[in-house]
């Protein structure tokens, strides 16, 4: 009799713990969403670690990626960057800034039917090489351009 009671209590305890965990998960849907956010890549302090965390440890230089960016940015806080891929089967486009405190600026997923090109504005801490990394048909391709900054965009 005692044995059964123990078993029931044990099973009950397990179930309620599970329910509690599920409830905790339900209450924070944004935490679940943020799981897709590649923390390791975004917190990488240098270019190599950021490329590695993105799975782009090996990548080929490609002339089929067109980066539109100024040669000289007067204000590093707002630097327009356009990235267009002419590579067939482009799946994602990422922007990396070599000398920023964290190298990875943005990563865009390009579903089928969406044109493989994005434009945005980024911050540059100082004069730096800027990379556009493209994943196409499972392989990584990259192009880079140096942007000179006269006033930095990070720090106080």
């Amino acid at each position, binding site marked *: 009799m005692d044995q059964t009671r123990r078993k029931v209590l044990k099973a009950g305890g397990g179930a309620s713990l599970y329910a509690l965990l599920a409830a905790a998960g339900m209450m924070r849907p*944004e935490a679940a969403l943020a799981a897709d*956010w590649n923390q390791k890549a*975004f917190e990488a302090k240098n270019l190599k670690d950021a490329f590695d965390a993105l799975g782009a440890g090996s990548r080929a230089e490609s002339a089929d990626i067109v980066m539109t960016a100024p040669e000289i940015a007067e204000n590093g806080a707002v630097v327009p960057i356009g990235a267009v891929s002419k590579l067939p089967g482009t799946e994602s486009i990422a922007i990396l800034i070599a000398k920023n405190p*964290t190298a990875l600026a943005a*990563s865009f997923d390009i579903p089928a039917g969406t044109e493989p090109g994005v434009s945005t504005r980024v*911050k540059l801490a100082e004069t730096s090489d800027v990379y556009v990394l493209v994943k196409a048909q499972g392989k990584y391709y990259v192009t880079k351009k140096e942007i000179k900054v006269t006033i930095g965009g990070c*720090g106080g």
Partner: protein
Amino acid sequence: MADPMRIRAVAKDGAVNVKILMSHEMETGQRKDGAGKPIPAHFIQQISATWQGKVVLSANWGTAISKNPFLEFSFKGGKKGERIQVTWTDNKGDKRTDEATIN
């Protein structure tokens, strides 16, 4: 709650060009306030655009995106009068969704 996004979607030659302007501090976590204390990072981490229930663009962002972010892209298939939705989520869990009609 953050201010609404400004979204412009224009159909041309079989594709819809979308321009989005968000209102967000995009604080990097690198800056210090007047008293020398670090200002915590506060930035948009994820953004997605949907058209007729289909995701047409999704992105993950770090702190290097400029304050009041701008984003432009194009997708095929959308027509005048249809609607697109754009949602962003920041690192503090704040969220905002806005809609626009394709012109």
